[in-house]
C-alpha cells in the first residue's frame, strides 16, 4: 500500500510551499526575477514572489510561494528518532534494572569541548528534570555523575573509566561551522584509540543532534529536541541487557 503525499495549502495536492531567502543582489525588478527563476530551478512548477525588500545596497530579501509537484510515498518513510520508540517510565526503568541487571547502572554525562551550555544536559540528568520528566539523578537504580559544561573529551573519558561507567552522555549545543561534528568525532576516536569504545554505551544529545548523525559518528544513539530522561534511561537499560546477552 502506498500513500502519496504533497504539501497542502488549501486544497489537496496543491503543493504550495512558503519560502523566504536573501540574495546578494540589489532589490528591484531584476532581483525579483532572479528570485523567481531560482525558485523554479529548484523544481517548483510555479512561483510567485510576493514580497521583496532591500537589506543593504547589495542584498535583498524575498518571500515567495512555489507550487511543487514532487511527492513522497508516506508508507515508505522510516522515522529515525530515538524518542519515537515506546519507552519506560522512571519506575519501570528501576524495576527493569532490579530484575534484569541486578546492580546499579552508572551514567556519566557532560557538555563537552568548549560548549558552555548546561541546561540541556541538566534537563536530562539533574534531579529536577525538565517539563515534568524527572532527571536521571532521581532514578534510584542509577548512579549518575553530571560533570557540567566545557569538559574536555579526555577528562570525560578518564572519569568514565574511573567510575566504571556503563553509559556516557555527551551534550552538544553549539553547532556553528560543524564544531559539534569534529568534537563528537574526536570523542569516539579517543575511545577507539584506547581500545575501550565497546566498554561504554555512548549517547549524544542536543537540539541539533539527530539519531542519524550520532550513529554515523559512531555513537549508539542520538537524542534531539524534545527528548527526556525517560527516553535516555530506557535506551540505556535495554542496550545494557542486549550487551550483557552477547
Amino acid at each position: 500500500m502506498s500513500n502519496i503525499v504533497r504539501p497542502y495549502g488549501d486544497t489537496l495536492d496543491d503543493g504550495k510551499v512558503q519560502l523566504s531567502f536573501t540574495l546578494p543582489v540589489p532589490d528591484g525588478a531584476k532581483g525579483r526575477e532572479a528570485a523567481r527563476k531560482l525558485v523554479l530551478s529548484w523544481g517548483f512548477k510555479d512561483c510567485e514572489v510576493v514580497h521583496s525588500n532591500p537589506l543593504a545596497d547589495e542584498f535583498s530579501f524575498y518571500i515567495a510561494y512555489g507550487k511543487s509537484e514532487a511527492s513522497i510515498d508516506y508508507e515508505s518513510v522510516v522515522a529515525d528518532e530515538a524518542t519515537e520508540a515506546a519507552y519506560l517510565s522512571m519506575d519501570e526503568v528501576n524495576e527493569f534494572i532490579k530484575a534484569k541487571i541486578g546492580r546499579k547502572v552508572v551514567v556519566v554525562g557532560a557538555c563537552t569541548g568548549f560548549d558552555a551550555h548546561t541546561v540541556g544536559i541538566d534537563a536530562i540528568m539533574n534531579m529536577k528534570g525538565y517539563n515534568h520528566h524527572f532527571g536521571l539523578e532521581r532514578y534510584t537504580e542509577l548512579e549518575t555523575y553530571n560533570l557540567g559544561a566545557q569538559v574536555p573529551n579526555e577528562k570525560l573519558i578518564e572519569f568514565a573509566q574511573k567510575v566504571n561507567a556503563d553509559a556516557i552522555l555527551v551534550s552538544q549545543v553549539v553547532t556553528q561551522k560543524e564544531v559539534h561534528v569534529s568534537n563528537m568525532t574526536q570523542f569516539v576516536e579517543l575511545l577507539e584509540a584506547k581500545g575501550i569504545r565497546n566498554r561504554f554505551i555512548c549517547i549524544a544529545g542536543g537540539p541539533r543532534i539527530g539519531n542519524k548523525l550520532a550513529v554515523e559518528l559512531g555513537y549508539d544513539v542520538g537524542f534531539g529536541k524534545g527528548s527526556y530522561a525517560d527516553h535516555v534511561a530506557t535506551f540505556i537499560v535495554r542496550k545494557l541487557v542486549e550487551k550483557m546477552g552477547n
Partner: protein
Amino acid sequence: MKEKLGLSRDRIAEARELAERICAPVMDFVEAHSSVTVERATLRLAGADDANADGVPVPNLVVDRLRDRLEDGALKWYVNALLRQGGTVESLNRKIAEGLDVSSVPLGDEKAVRARADELVDRGFARIRAARERRDAMRAEWKGRNNDPLLYLIVATGNIHEDVKQAKAAAAQGADVIAVIRTTAQSLLDYVPYGATTEGFGGTYATQENFRIMRAALDGEAERQQRYILLTNYASGLCMPEIAAMGALERLDMMLNDSMYGILFRDINMYRTFVDQKFSRMINAVAGIIINTGEDNYLTTSDAYEKAHTVLASQFLNERFGFAAGLPAGLLGLGHAFELDPTMRNGFLYELAQAQMAREIFPDHPLKYMPPTKFMSGDIFRGLVMDSMFNFVSKATNQGIHLLGMLTEAIHTPFMMDRFIAVDNAKYVMNSIADFHDEVEFRKDGIIVRRARDVLEETIGFMKEIAGVSLFDSIEKGMFADVKRPKDGGKGLDGLVKKGPAYYNPLETRLKNEAGLR
C-alpha cells in the same frame, strides 16, 4: 521620569546600603591584588603590542617571564628594558617578539624608569582621551538621530570581513548599536589573539585589529547615515581588562562587562574575576564606555518569575561595583530580560511590571533590555510574536538599550534577513506606541504595582541573606542562577597576584585619579 509604581524610596535606599555592605569586603580583597591580565592590560596601555611568530602576544611574553616577580608589577621591567635598549616602544615590542626577555635586563636607575613610565602612561591616556573626544564630537554632530531606545544587533559570523558586511547591512537597516559577539571559548583564553581573524565558532575573536576594522567600517556607515553607530564587544572572560584597554584605544562605545558572569557561566575563578572586573571597569570609566551587565543570563538557568529578585539584586551589586570603579550611572547599562514562560497567565503584565521597576529604581542608567531566548523555539512565527511583545514592553517602559530579538533564536546565529525582520518589527511597534509611556498609568494596587513591590521586597530579603554570609559564600552556595562555584575552583586562579609592598603601577594610579576614585 514619571513614577508609576509607588515603590518605597526608603526600601530602595536600603537595598543600596545592603549592596554597599556586600561589596565592601570584596573591594578590600580587590585592592590588595593584581592579576596576569591586569598586568598585561597595563602594558598594553603603555604601548605593548605585536606578537611573536607563534602568535603569542608581546604582553604575554613579558608577563610570562615575570611570573614569579609580579608582586612588584610588570611595568617597571618593560620600561627598564625600553631605557636600556633605547629606541621606540615599537622597536622594543619587536625585540620582545623576537625573543628579548625583559626580566633578564638588569634594573637601572629607578628615577629614570619612573620618568619614562610616566611618559608612556601620558601617551596611553592621550590616545584614550582622543578617542573619547572623537566620539563626543560625532554624537554631538548627529544628536537626536538615533533611535530611542537604541536598537542593538549582534553579528557573529566568525569572520571579521563577513561581519563587516553584516554590520553595515544592519546599520543600514536602522540599528544604532552593533555588537560583535565573541567566538565560543575565547573567554577561557588567557591571552588576546593578535591580528585580523577569519575563523570563529558562534562568534568572532575579539582582537585589536578586528576592533579597528569594524570601527572604520561603522564610521563609514555612520557618515553615510548621518547617525552615530555604536560598537560593542565583550570585556569578559580571562582577559577582561585587556579587552577593555583595547576597546578604549580603538573607540568602542559599549562593553559587555559583568562582575559575576564569568564566575557563573564560564567557571572562571571568583577572586580572579572580581580583581579583573574592577580594573576593566576603571578603564571603561575613563574611556566613556557604557558597560552592559549580564543579569539576563541568570534567567536562562533559573525561572524568570521565581528568580526575578536575583536579577534586581545583581543589578544593585553591579551598580555598586561600577560606582566603586568610577563608572557613573550614565555608563551603567544594567541588564534584564523578557524571559517569562509565554504560557504563563498575565505573563505580559509581569514583564511590564519588572521592566518598569528597573526603570524607576535605576532612572539615570541606560538599562539594557534583552529579548526572549529561552522559550524561543523552532516555531519562528510564534517567536516573532514574542519579540513583538518584548518590543512593546521595552518602549512602553522607556528602556535605554534594546537588544533585538531574533525569530530564529533557537536555530542559528542570525541570518541577514532575520535582523531585517527584527528591526522592522521593532520600528513598527515602537512608532505606533511612541507616547504610550507618558500616556498610561497603572492601577494602584493592581497586578503590575503589586508585582514590582513584591520583587523589591524579595530582593531585600535575598540581599540580607547574602550580606549575612558574604558574596563569596553565596556564590559557593549557588544563590545566583542556581550555579555553584567553589572559591578556589574555576579557571584562572593561578593568574592572581598578591601585590607586594613595592607594587608599582602608575597607570593604575592614573586610572584611579581620572575615574575620580581618589
